């Protein structure tokens, strides 16, 4: 009888014990994903579909190379998936930052003015329903070049949730806070930094988080249509043209993982910048 094991302390320190106690948090997802992959692999092995199974990521020699060497760079379009993804992310970053900048400023302006809101809200509501792919030909006509057109597609896809949520956030500033600003005769600048921005921040972040997902979806769509650029979207299209089907599966894995990371990163930023609200 040296020590009495304490269940709570032991469960957090002993990893195996922790896994046993929290079976339901990892066992069910594992079963779900495993089952899905199994059904997929069986249907591919039985030739029910032309799509290769998940094992092809390893069994296909070219795909295995892509999987194991994401950082290779042989110049031109022949780069590893890391560089393809980075090129796409770079475009997303530019278009998204532009959308955030314009969306937040326009959202605040519209949110503060009922007249402007009434004038533009129908237009915003209409434009936000236009799919990213539909903007591609318009963007190509406007800019005549792939790179700015791709950034424009990101921008125009990502801006609406940011703009609409920011405007809503400004409209939702409680009347009490406005009254405090009125009775203290706060300057416009002080009202802006001390009341408006903090009050609307949760709404702004909601918009930013919806938009980062949309922006990432849009870049893939845009690159698929714009030929001859380095980027994960065009990589998929190129693989399809050359019938490298298992490469597509690998690229889709990258896309999903990056999208998830972007969303988590925004959620983390949101929790850091809007605590307790």
């Amino acid at each position, binding site marked *: 009888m040296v020590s009495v094991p304490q269940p709570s302390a032991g469960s957090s320190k002993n990893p195996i014990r922790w896994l046993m106690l929290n079976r339901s948090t990892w066992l069910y997802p594992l079963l779900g994903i495993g089952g899905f992959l199994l059904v997929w692999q069986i249907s591919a092995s039985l030739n029910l579909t032309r799509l290769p199974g998940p094992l092809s990521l390893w069994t296909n020699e070219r795909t295995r190379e892509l999987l194991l060497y994401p950082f290779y760079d042989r110049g031109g379009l022949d780069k590893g998936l890391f560089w393809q993804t980075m090129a796409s992310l770079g475009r997303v970053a530019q278009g998204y930052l532009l959308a955030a900048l314009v969306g937040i400023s326009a959202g605040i302006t519209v949110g503060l003015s009922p007249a402007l809101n009434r004038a533009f809200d129908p237009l915003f509501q209409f434009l936000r329903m236009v799919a990213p792919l539909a903007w591609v030909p318009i963007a190509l006509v406007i800019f005549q070049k792939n790179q700015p057109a791709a950034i424009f597609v990101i921008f125009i896809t990502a801006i609406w949730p940011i703009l609409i949520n920011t405007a809503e956030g400004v409209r939702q500033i409680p009347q009490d806070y406005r009254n405090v600003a009125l009775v*203290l005769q706060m300057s416009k600048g002080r009202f802006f930094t001390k009341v408006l921005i903090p009050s609307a921040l949760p709404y702004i972040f909601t918009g930013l988080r919806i938009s980062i997902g949309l922006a990432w979806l849009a870049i893939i769509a845009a690159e698929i249509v714009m030929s001859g650029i380095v980027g994960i979207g065009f990589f998929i299209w190129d693989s399809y043209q050359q019938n490298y089907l298992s490469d597509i599966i690998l690229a889709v894995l990258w896309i999903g993982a990056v999208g998830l990371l972007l969303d988590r990163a925004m959620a983390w930023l949101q929790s850091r910048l809007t605590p307790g609200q």
Partner: protein
Amino acid sequence: MATMLQPPAADLLTPPGDAFLRFENVSKVYPTPTGPYTVLDGIDMAVNQGEFMCVIGHSGCGKSTLLNMVSGFSTPSSGQVVLHGNAITKPGPDRMVVFQGYALLPWFSAYDNVYLAIDSVKPDLPAVEKKEITREHLAMVGLTEAADKKINQLSGGMKQRVAIARALAIRPEVLILDEPFGALDAITKEELQEELLTIWNTQKCTVLMITHDIDEALFLADRLVMMTNGPAAKIGEIMEINFPRPRNREEIMEDPIYYDMRNQALDFLYSRFAHDDTE
């Protein structure tokens, strides 16, 4: 109207007739789809400088509207509210409000809420002084230790203390409180009433306070304004409360006059102007 202008206490500076704050035949009418709706009708009243005035009446009688015309959030449809001889047209820091829902900014600490008010009203004051005033007023309401807490971490009573500290820190001439203690438990409420009186004794600002609680009004006020029921509410009666200050709750409640006044107010509210519950 002459009886209303009589000063309740001896230490008042303003002579009757030249009152500090006057309601001059004030009416408030709201247009509605079914025609104009009169909330207040022909209010005439004078408030002396440094006076503590409570307003009581059933809900919907326009108490808040009356005080909103002092704070400047609302303007009379006819007549005017005059402070220092100037008609009130918009909100300003000389008439600070303790809002019903506290209206503190939740992304700031208690300290920052008070500091922001001082900094907004007196931006040219040296920062050292602004900090000193902030600390001093938080200390007055007993919040020195909770000063750095965020508003959401504070209890209702503490939030109300911050709101009072913020309001008094900018040294308003008139302090307007709209049912400030309505949401608090009985013990916190009594504590805050006493704190408010203590601070008011040192600052001597004029206080206008809406309340539903007759005992609260009798403990705090120099005069109690009782309003008739809306629509078209008027001032029904103004009761002078002449207990000596500083007041002691037990002593006041032992005074037989206390119960006379209490019964008179109850009679006004529940017999002569009983609230129609079907409204």
